[in-house]
């Protein structure tokens, strides 16, 4: 529609050709003022007196200009830039205050991103396993211990009677020490039952995974 093109054109013009638009506004009001002076002079007033009377009648040249500017509705953009400049200048004048603000912002943004990366890692990110939405972890649950670890003999019973899960495995923390010539090193390790890697959807690249027969020490012949 023609009207919207007109409106957009005027807005862009007010923004990009501000000085030109300002000059036009000044010229427009000045034309009015001159006509008023002429009218008073034609009525017999001395020229100087006519000028004062006309200025009085105009009642605040700059105020009218400001109201006309408001009508252009780009004032807020112009004001935004001058506000921004003013803010930067004031910050430059009080470096202590600026430093405190920057430090506060820095610390809070840092803390926030730390917290959210933790939440992302622990709660939001998917586990790096195939069909991770089908993997569950068991605990024995009672009123006093909502998450009590399962003991290995119970696990054997559960596994023997399992009809609900594709595969079951158990693991227990079992760190080991690596010692030799230097300072002994602690290595983090887990003992796992047969089927552990199958539960996680991993396949051995070479040879085979442990199966249940490997769980008995007397079978460890190899």
């Amino acid at each position, binding site marked *: 529609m023609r009207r919207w093109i007109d409106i957009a054109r005027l807005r862009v013009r007010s923004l990009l050709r501000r000085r030109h638009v300002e000059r036009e506004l000044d*010229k427009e009001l000045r034309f009015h003022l001159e006509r008023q002076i002429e009218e008073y002079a034609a009525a017999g007033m001395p020229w100087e007196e006519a000028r004062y009377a006309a200025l009085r009648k105009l009642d605040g040249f700059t105020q009218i200009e400001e*109201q*006309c500017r408001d009508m252009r509705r780009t004032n807020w953009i112009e004001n935004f830039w001058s506000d921004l400049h003013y803010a930067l200048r004031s910050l430059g004048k009080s470096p202590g205050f600026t430093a405190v603000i920057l430090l506060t912002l820095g610390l809070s943004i840092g803390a926030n991103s730390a917290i959210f990366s933790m939440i992302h890692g622990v709660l939001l990110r998917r586990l790096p396993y195939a069909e991770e939405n089908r993997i569950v972890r068991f605990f024995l649950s009672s009123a006093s211990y909502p998450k009590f670890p399962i003991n290995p003999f119970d696990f054997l019973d559960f596994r023997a009677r399992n009809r609900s899960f594709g595969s079951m495995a158990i693991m227990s923390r079992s760190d080991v020490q690596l010692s030799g010539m230097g300072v002994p090193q602690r290595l983090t390790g887990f003992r796992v039952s047969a089927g552990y890697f199958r539960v996680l959807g991993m396949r051995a690249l070479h040879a085979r995974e442990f199966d249940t027969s490997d769980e008995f020490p007397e079978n460890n012949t190899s």
Partner: protein
Amino acid sequence: MSRPSDLIQGTLDLLILKTVSLEPKHGWAIAKRIEQVSQDVLQVTQGALYPALHRLEQQGWIRAEWRASETGRDAKFYALTRAGRTQLERELAQWERLSNAVGMVIRSDLGASRC
């Protein structure tokens, strides 16, 4: 002298649109024309006129153009756009409705209000 608040809100827009609908005019001529036609009852101050002109221009109802005035100096002439003409008709209809309604209320029979 009539201040903008003396006019009912929106009336100045209607007066301006009507005045420039006949032919393009600059601000001074618009003010003079309104004064003359209303036999000096309506006095439009510059403080009300120019912001109104700029608002109407920004809304796309009137379009401005610099031209030589009758005195030879350049002046900003305002002309009604096509959208402005529709707007003028809308405002005229609204004004008729409003003034009729006000007329009905203030001219209603006093005898009826006695009971």
